[in-house]
């Protein structure tokens, strides 16, 4: 009886392995579920999950060695050991170059290592086996996005949508970001709206939609969407900073400063927000207070060229041209390509009647691409000879 039981158990194991391997060999398309690979994608300062974490059942491959290596890769990936995962997936491919799910796995690991070129290559190989996998097109688009090939990324996103991969808010989100970067702000807004339709809690999409409205000069809409982002995720200092800027652009200066101050309270080293307080005060004509704010920026970030530029502008409007020039000098030391600093320094030199110096600086600003400096050079006719 005991012998019979052992026989049956051995038979069962052999049968199971055979059956599973046979299934894999014949039906890779069916069994290999890309959703097994969890792809944490960087968005801003955080990570979100691009693909839902579903079953993590490992596959026992018909091709035993390739399958084992693949499973090792998945395990390493889940442990965030991406280099090891890449090695395992590569071993799997070496064992069986036709084991296409390993291309997918390795591609995702490359993404995690920011090696987008190799990621794209692997996902392309995977897509030759699974050309209808919308999620893979999305991942490819994602890799292309981060390798700054936005044109290809858009094509991949469109492919993903065509393959009915439409329930991923991030796809629309990144698509929107690309439109934003192309300065196609209305298109960007449309995409961000799709993103929040899929995921109403997508705070980043609200933020970026608000930024798009801002770029279109639609400040009330911008304010409303930044507020929505804050409502969903109140812990991000930059949301408050952005809201402050929308208020500032809408000339609601007190509200702007309130938001900037919230941002600084959350992150005391948030020098851009402190700088924005200075900008707001400057726009209100409170030049001395602005000067204090810009100097405060330097206590947090002493090499912030913008702040020196802004300090220079404060001195300029306060008619202290020598101090203005000192400040611009520092901005230029920190960033020798800072065209505006050259132009501003020229303006201050002009006010001191140092026309030779002014003309030199306008020329430099022009050479750095500031067209308006060319206009100013028209007064240099007598200082050129």
């Amino acid at each position, binding site marked *: 009886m005991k012998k019979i039981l052992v026989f049956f158990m051995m038979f069962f194991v052999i049968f199971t392995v055979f059956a599973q391997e046979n299934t894999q060999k014949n039906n890779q398309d069916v069994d290999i579920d890309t959703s097994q690979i969890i792809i944490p994608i960087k968005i801003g300062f955080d990570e979100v999950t691009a693909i839902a974490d579903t079953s993590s059942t490992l596959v026992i491959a018909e091709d035993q060695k390739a399958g084992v290596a693949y499973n090792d890769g998945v395990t390493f990936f889940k442990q965030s050991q991406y280099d090891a995962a890449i090695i395992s997936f590569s071993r799997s491919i070496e064992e069986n170059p036709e084991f296409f799910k390993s291309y997918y796995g390795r591609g995702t690991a490359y993404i995690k290592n920011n090696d987008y070129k190799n990621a794209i290559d692997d996902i392309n190989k995977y897509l030759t086996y699974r050309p209808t996998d919308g999620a893979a097109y999305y991942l490819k688009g994602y890799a292309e996005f981060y390798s700054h090939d936005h044109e290809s990324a858009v094509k991949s996103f469109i492919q993903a949508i065509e393959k009915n991969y439409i329930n991923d808010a991030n796809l629309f989100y990144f698509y929107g970001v690309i439109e934003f970067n192309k300065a196609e702000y209305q298109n960007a807004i449309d995409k961000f709206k799709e993103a929040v339709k899929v995921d109403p809690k997508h705070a980043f999409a609200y933020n970026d939609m608000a930024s798009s409205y801002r770029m279109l000069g639609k400040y009330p809409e911008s304010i409303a969407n930044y507020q929505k982002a804050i409502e969903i995720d109140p812990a991000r200092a930059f949301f408050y900073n952005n809201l402050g800027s929308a208020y500032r652009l809408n000339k609601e200066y007190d509200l702007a400063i309130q938001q900037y101050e919230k941002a600084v309270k959350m992150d005391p080293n948030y020098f851009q927000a402190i700088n924005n307080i200075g900008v707001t005060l400057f726009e209100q004509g409170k030049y001395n207070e602005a000067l204090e704010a810009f100097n405060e920026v330097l206590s947090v970030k002493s090499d912030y060229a913008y702040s020196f530029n802004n300090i220079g502008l404060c001195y300029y409007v306060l008619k202290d041209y020598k101090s203005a020039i000192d400040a611009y000098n520092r901005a230029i030391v920190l960033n020798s390509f800072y065209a505006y600093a050259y132009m501003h320094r020229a*303006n201050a030199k002009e006010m001191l009647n140092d026309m030779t110096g002014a003309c030199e600086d306008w020329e430099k600003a022009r050479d750095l691409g500031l067209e308006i400096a060319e206009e100013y050079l028209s007064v240099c*006719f007598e200082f050129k000879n």
Partner: protein
Amino acid sequence: MRINWRIVIMVAFFSMFIYTLNAQVNVEIDKKDFNISKNGYKEALAELKSGDTYYIMASSGAYRMALPHYLKAYEYNQNSPQLNYKIGVCYLFSNEKREAATFFKKAYRSEPLVAPDIKYLIGKALQLSDEFDEALQFYKEYKDDLEANAAADKKVKIDDNVIKDINKKIHECNVAKELTKKPIRVFIDNLGPNINSEYPDYGPVISADESMLIFTSRRDDITGKNKKDAIDQQYYEDLYVSYNENKKGWTKALNMRSLNTAEHDASVGLSPDGQILYTYKGYNEGTILESKLKGDNWTSPKELNKYINTKYHETSASISHDGKYLYFVSDRPKDDFGKNSLGGLDIFVSEKTDKGDWGPAQNVGAPINTEYDEEGVFMHPDGITMYFCSKREGSMGGYDIFYSERDENGKWQEPVNIGYPVNTSDDDVFFVVAGNARYAYYSSARDGGYGSQDIYRITFLGPERFMALGTEDNLIASSNTTIEQKVEQEVVEVRKVRLTIMKGTVTDALSREPIEAIIEIVDNEKDELINSLASNSKTGKYLVSLPSGKNYGVAVKADGYLFYSENIEIPDATAYQEVTKDIVLSKVGIGSKIVLKNIFFDYGKETLRETSFPELNRLVTLLESYPNMTIEIGGHTDSHGSLKLNTELSEARAKAVVDYLISKGINAGRLSYKGYAYLQPIATNDTEEGRQQNRRVEFKVVTIK
């Protein structure tokens, strides 16, 4: 006594409220106000009497003389409403007009009825002190009082002019409030002790390149020494000159003795090249004279003809850049075409006739002239911008400086107030602008000067410079990279002068001695003589103003010399530039040759373009002047193409020139031609500029008897 109307205009701009000042004569000092020690009272009374002696003369000079006496009396009693009132009036006619408000207000507080016009004068004094809101309040109260009095007493009738004047003042204050909110960016720099003195210095006129400044001064080394004007008790006017060669600073101003007389001699206009000076003398109600610079001597001032000088007041003049038009100011009621003037002083224009004299004068009309006075006309060398001062609507007080541009159809555009702080609530007159339009000159009695009126240079800095505050936001949440946002200031369009000043010297090719040559500027497209002027016989210097947007032919001619020609293409968009071009003339002699720079052919062909005709006609004139001269026309090319083709082309072109000359009556026997192709280059063929120089037509004198 010869009345100098220009001085009257300059010092008595308050004419509109003079009528109100009639009351001031009756403002008597109340003895009880001077209830002080016996000696003190005597001294105060003596000062008051001395002051009153001048005060009743009611002229600006007399008020100036009265002021120190009243101020002495004021030391004894600072609360007399009458004395405060009189001091206020004296200050209104001084260079310290801002002091007046304090005294008027004190007078008013002590005695609101100290004089019927007290509220008006407080308003005026406050307006001059830039206290526009308060000034408005007093003007309105004054107007209300007048209307209330008229309503209460049917016998009282308000003069319409009085109400009109008050309304104008109210309007001025409102304009001033707006203009002072948006001051234009300028430097206003005193020209320093080489120019200015403790006495009145004003009326600057400059050459277009700012190398010469002539102005009027009433300092103590004038020609009619110790002679003072009865109206204002200042020395008579004399002309002074200073030079600023190579922008090294103004030399010490020198009295222009050869032009000055024992009477008033004032500068009113200077041609852009500094060779023709317009001066003003007070006789015949104001007369404009012209003097020309010959070598380093000015010719004796000569009255301009009857179209310019009439029995009415003519006060200032400015010649256009091409010397064809004279703009001047007069209060004549009609122009020479029967057109009525618009009121007060107007600006007129006269065109130079073929005989070289000024033709009938025409009122330039609206929108330049108005029912108010226009003065101090200045035509900019760009040929399209007129600067003038006016008391028109839109002035912030008294005369303001305005400019107007003439459009393509010759129509003057609506004048624009040049803005604060160049314009003030006081009178701003006699304003001239350098060719570059970045600098202007005028006189002002502002604080910190050398005394009285001084001459200042204004540097126009243009609109506020662009400012970009640096700021960054995390516009894209998924990116750590912040996005730079420039906070930009609003920028307004900059007015640009599109003008080329070409200047230099004309000299003899061998001796290098300066030559007095005639410089003709031709519009090649229209075959039209634009300007004809002479270089200075002593220095050989010349200066021409060439507005952008034309192809100019410049021909320089002098007796006994071959002419020199230059072609200058100045595209429409060309901004202001100064080009120095020294011209060397060769004497007519065997072997001497010149390049004909204004000969144009169709591309790759020998067909002469019509734009070549002015140049060819000059050559015809030269050949007519020297009937025994034979010449060779030489055609030259650059090195592009084969020698054969270039020889054929250059020869064909030389022949085309000869054919033209024959068609104009020149005997063919005097003319020969030759194609040199590229065998006699005058510049490198490696650059386009050099190749362009090599593509030329020359003529050479072969024989001459």
